[in-house]
């Protein structure tokens, strides 16, 4: 069912290499532009692929997946916020900012899960890709709402303007545009013309993902110095929250959406992952009182490597167990 050798896939190994390079203080560095270019490429690639797959899905099950994605996007941050305020005892504004990260998703983690399944030749449903696109936005809005509640008002004039802009940004966000736009292109473009871009966006995809994860390994590892600022109870949260999210995802994937092992694993991964690209700047603008050292260390330094190294195989095992 699950063996160590299932970890020996380039995506995960390159992540480990990056993590190690940074640990031994290597001077290895990616140009920031390469990281950004790779993430643009990966979002388009996943979008096109999702679009061609979705063309085959019937409207009812697509709609079900979208509703579930919205439910998770709005629901998970509320759970995270409650945990953070009541149990971890973080102040409300930091709690709101962190919660928003955990309601949103990490495309890098999702793609690692896809690579994991591919390496083991497990098939999976195509709905999770739409859910990836959908789940980017709601968490940002919930983060805003929670922060405004915490401030006990809807904010002053400046806050309101920022809020309005952020709701706009949540939906016109670069990642969201790329994912949804490419999905549309994948679903509607002439098949013959689409085939011409397949070598670039599909055949090369896994290699480009490995390169991206190499850099993400370095980024995650770079956060280690901030661990002491975060404190033990928040560190526990950074591992407990993905487990809670994954559990919710597994139950919903199995009982509500009726996915197979592959689809359940992907949905669990979505629910377990925390955003570290789109949400941090949004929360920095929305809740300047919150500390980036906290939310970035948790999402990027704790939850992301946990999911890549341990979480994904674990969620897969659980998905395997529940479907038997």
């Amino acid at each position, binding site marked *: 069912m699950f063996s160590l050798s299932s970890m020996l896939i380039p995506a995960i190994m390159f992540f480990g290499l990056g993590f190690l390079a940074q640990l031994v203080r290597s001077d290895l560095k990616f140009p*920031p532009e390469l990281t950004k270019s790779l993430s643009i490429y990966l979002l388009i690639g996943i979008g096109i692929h999702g679009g061609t797959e979705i063309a085959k899905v019937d409207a009812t099950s697509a709609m079900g997946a979208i509703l579930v994605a919205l439910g998770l996007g709005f629901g998970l941050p509320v759970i995270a916020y409650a945990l953070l305020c009541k149990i971890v005892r973080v102040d409300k504004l930091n709690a709101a900012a962190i919660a928003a990260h955990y309601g949103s998703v990490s495309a890098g983690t999702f793609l690692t899960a896809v690579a994991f399944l591919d390496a083991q030749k497990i098939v999976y449903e195509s709905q999770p890709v739409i859910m990836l696109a959908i789940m980017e936005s709601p968490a940002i809005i919930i983060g805003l709402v929670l922060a405004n509640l915490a401030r006990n008002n809807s904010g002053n004039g400046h806050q309101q303007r920022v809020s309005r802009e952020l709701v706009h940004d949540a939906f016109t966000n670069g990642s969201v545009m790329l994912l949804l736009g490419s999905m549309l292109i994948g679903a509607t473009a002439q098949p013959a013309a689409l085939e011409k871009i397949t070598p670039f966006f599909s055949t090369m995809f896994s290699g480009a993902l490995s390169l991206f994860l190499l850099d993400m390994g370095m980024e995650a590892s770079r956060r280690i110095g901030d661990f002491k600022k975060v404190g033990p109870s928040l560190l526990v949260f950074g591992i407990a929250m993905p487990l809670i999210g994954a559990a919710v995802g597994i139950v919903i994937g199995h009982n509500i959406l009726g996915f197979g092992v592959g689809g359940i694993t992907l949905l669990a991964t979505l629910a377990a992952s925390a955003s570290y690209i789109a949400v941090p*700047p949004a929360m920095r603008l929305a809740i300047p009182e919150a500390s*980036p050292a906290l939310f970035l260390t948790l999402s990027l330094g704790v939850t992301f490597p946990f999911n890549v190294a341990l979480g994904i195989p674990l969620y897969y095992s659980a998905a395997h167990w529940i479907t038997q």
Partner: protein
Amino acid sequence: MRAVKRIEIIIEEIELENVTDELHRIGVAGYTVVPRAWGYGTHGMRQDNNLGMGNVYLVIACDEKQSQQVIEAIRTILRRYGGICLVSDAQWVIHEG
């Protein structure tokens, strides 16, 4: 040459639009932005990473009166998000005419 105030501002990239909006509202003659700066301050180290959230470096040359308005506007932004603003004296080389 004309005596002007030279205002330099270092802020997070995500706040830049807030600042340039203010500059246009005040009606300064111009400004320059140097992107991709990073640094250290009260908020700790800001970006030596590749995931965004770096700083920008802004220079504005303007007369004394406008500089007061810029400083007032920038002060509220800095109070909220951090960053620094330095003001010094300079001579602007006039090239028109």
